[in-house]
């Protein structure tokens, strides 16, 4: 008897869907209502993953998501906390989502350059409903139940569009605040980012929040870069420990497009990032940098797939993890080189540091190669701090504990220094220091 690899969603989802579907955005539009129904059917077909599904081998999410939770509503968030998370400088435009719902009154999207548009999905539902189905439909081959769940249940989201050659100076920040002080529930926000040929955007995404009520965020992003377009996407994830954050991005690059993605996971009870990069045009380039630092009982899973579909593309993955307490970190990165993708250069590095005897790292760096004229390599390490570096610092007079803290911070620093926006980098550094044992002392002694 085959043991089940996936399970049907609990009937509570079906109940919720029946109850809510007439109130969800765009429900007046038959095409969209049908899409939501289809999506819901796909969720049931695929089922929710147990750890017997290879992609979920090291992350069990079922306990957190098997039963439907109420759809979250926006609240009045603590403004000071919001402000503290602002990044991108004074010129930055900002979309603020509270509990997964876009709050226009808190957002700032005025004075955009010609050819740049930011629209909420809710607003589109009212004004251009005919566009909604196209913007919210997952790719037909999409195999993730969560992507379809999002398509069935989304309540809020944003569409960012840049016409050809539009290159706004100021970054755009997407700020997700989970107000879990009272509300438990789930939310399925959706982002669509489209850059025309030669356009350029600096996108900052921050996740934070407060409170003990269990919240689950199922964020789905669809990003398309036209020929020669350039996107710098920087993400800091620091939701409260009560939260589960599942962030799935599908990023398509046309010829000559360039993606830089810097992501730091520095909080949250369970965080899983699924990043699928499709290099669909020759000469496209993707640089993916990541830092994760789960502590206590946190769990972080970085799931990355880079699809080299066309010749002459370049990709580089650089992920570092520091794991303490009873935490667990998972890295599963795969480079896929398709038959036609000759002259591919693809690299992947994953280095991990274990800080405690109860922490665990599971890493699975994969290569799947179907073209012969390629240069692909990967390396993964798991270990403790370099003893010779430790000795060196101690020989220069630093106490052992300080030397350890310093080296741990430096280990993370290799990723932090690649972060472009100084504000965001500062916020990340702050959180990294909070997580490095003895980080406070480092700061007090002016060592960092």
């Amino acid at each position: 008897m085959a043991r089940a690899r996936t399970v049907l969603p609990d009937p509570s989802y079906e109940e919720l869907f029946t109850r809510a579907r007439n109130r969800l955005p765009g429900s007046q539009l038959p095409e969209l209502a049908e899409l939501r129904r289809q999506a819901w059917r796909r969720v049931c077909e695929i089922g929710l993953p147990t750890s017997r599904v290879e992609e979920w081998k090291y992350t069990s999410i079922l306990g957190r998501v098997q039963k439907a939770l109420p759809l979250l509503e926006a609240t009045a968030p603590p403004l000071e906390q919001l402000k503290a998370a602002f990044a991108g400088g004074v010129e930055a435009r900002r979309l603020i989502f509270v509990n997964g719902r876009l709050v226009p009154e808190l957002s700032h999207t005025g004075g955009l350059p010609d050819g740049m548009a930011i629209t909420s999905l809710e607003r589109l539902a009212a004004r251009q409903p005919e566009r909604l189905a196209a913007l919210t439909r997952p790719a037909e081959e999409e195999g993730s139940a969560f992507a379809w769940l999002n398509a069935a249940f989304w309540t809020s989201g944003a569409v960012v569009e840049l016409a050809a050659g539009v290159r706004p100076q100021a970054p755009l920040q997407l700020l997700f605040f989970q107000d879990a002080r009272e509300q438990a529930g789930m939310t399925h926000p959706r982002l669509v980012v489209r850059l025309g040929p030669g356009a350029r955007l600096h996108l900052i995404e921050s996740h934070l929040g407060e409170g003990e009520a269990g919240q689950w965020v199922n964020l789905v992003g669809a990003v398309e870069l036209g020929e020669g377009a350039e996107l710098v996407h920087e993400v800091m994830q620091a939701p409260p420990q009560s939260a589960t954050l599942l962030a799935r991005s599908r990023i398509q690059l046309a010829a000559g497009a360039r993606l830089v993605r810097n992501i730091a996971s520095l909080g949250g009870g369970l965080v899983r990032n699924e990043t699928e990069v499709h290099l669909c045009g020759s000469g496209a380039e993707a640089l993916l940098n990541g830092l994760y630092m789960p502590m206590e009982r946190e769990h972080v899973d970085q799931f990355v797939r880079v699809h080299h579909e066309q010749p002459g593309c370049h990709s580089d993955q650089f992920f570092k993890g520091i794991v303490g307490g009873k935490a667990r970190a998972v890295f599963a990165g795969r480079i896929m080189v398709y038959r036609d993708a000759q002259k591919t250069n693809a690299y992947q590095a994953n280095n991990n540091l274990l800080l405690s005897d109860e922490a665990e790292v599971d890493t699975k760096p994969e290569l799947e190669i179907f073209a012969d004229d390629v240069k692909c390599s990967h390396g993964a390490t798991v270990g403790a701090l370099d003893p010779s570096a430790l000795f060196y610092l101690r020989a220069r007079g630093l106490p052992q504990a300080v030397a350890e803290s310093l080296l741990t911070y430096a280990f993370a620093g290799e990723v932090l220094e690649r972060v472009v926006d100084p504000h965001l980098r500062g916020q990340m550094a702050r959180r990294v220091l909070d997580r490095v044992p003895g980080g406070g002392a480092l700061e007090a002694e002016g060592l960092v």
Partner: protein
Amino acid sequence: MSSAIETVREVTGGEYKWGFTTPVEEETAPPGLNEDIIRMISKKKGEPDWLTAWRLEAYRRWQAMEEPKWAKVHYPPIDFQAISYFAAPKQKERPKSLDDIDPEIRRTYEKLGIPIREQEILAGVAVDYVFDSVSVATTFKQKLEELGIIFCSISEAVRDHPELVRKYLGTVVPPGDNFYAALNSAVFTDGSFVYVPKGVRCPMELSTYFRINAAGTGQFERTLIIADEGSYVSYLEGCTAPMRDENQLHAAVVELIALDEAEIKYSTVQNWYPGDKDGKGGIYNFVTKRGLCKGRRSKISWTQVETGSAITWKYPSCILQGEESVGEFYSVAVTNNHQQADTGTKMVHIGKRTRSRIVSKGIAAGRSNNTYRGLVKIMRGAEGARNYTQCDSLLIGDRCGAHTVPYIEVRNRSAVAEHEATTSKISDDQLFYCRSRGISEEDAVALIVNGFCREVMDELPMEFAVEARKLLGISLEGSVG
């Protein structure tokens, strides 16, 4: 001294040269698997009741299991009821001396280049000859017995050394370990048994040569090697099969046990029939090999050169239980035409300061797929454990695939695991360089591939390194140009 490459050309003309059949009368069980067949096999071999019961228990477990599907290999469903689980050359009893062996069988092994003789080219190697389901001969038994080393077929071991077999059989690979191991436990027919007593260094290579001959059968051999405290043994297995249009199943289980400070070196040159160039026929090679480093400072080293089989599914592993024990895996896997290989290792670090090293070289040509799949698991108590893994893939042509799927699980902060992998092709520069020195393109490929694999080839016992090197060249013939 003739060069390896030249020899290859002369001998083979590029075809699978071991593909003949032997016209020997065989006794074959009817196709199908049920408790009666298992009882029949057990009875035929004169086994004690405990072993019959053990087989039946394995069979019951197998019935409740499903075929593993996670490997990157594709094949039509296997009809396990269409296979005959026992085939043996007809003979009244096992020949008393090497001279009494059926001349046809004798000729077979001569053609395969491993004559049943205790002399000449194999003077330093003792060989157990397994023909379909039974062992037909074992050389140098006498000489080994003088040192207290037991080297015989596992059937003989069951009869003559039941206490050893009963103590260790299934302790490393339990009958319910996986689908194919369960099947093997139910129906295994023959295989080799080795016991090296305390403090003895086995003075010669021990080797088993497996030959599938009969049609419509599978081969399910079982090998058990025990190295007692402070002993050393080097063991090698080789295998070939006739060319047939049908796929034949080979599902072996190998168990190694190394006690305190013992060392086992296990080498395989796997050359089962790979099928023709269109992917027709060939052996399905689903093998479970596992070694237990039970004692402190024990060492188990696997070396494999995999060139044959239509499908290879094989992960020779080490359970590093003893403190400071060492596990090694050196592998060359070559796939050409429509072959599929999913092979690698598992290194499970349990004891303190255990060390493991993995060197894997995958070469894919034609329309083949070649996957390295490996697990390095460092348990909570494995303080100071170390692993180093190097996986390199070489692609020849643009219709093949090379894949690397490592799993690294670490639960001890003082442990270090390092994994590196590269994928590349034979560079045009290298090819041109060789050719401009007068070496033909095909020979240049063989030369460069041999260079790519050398770290692994160097681990093979001398007697077989030359053979293995030739095999690499043959396997890749027709892959360039």
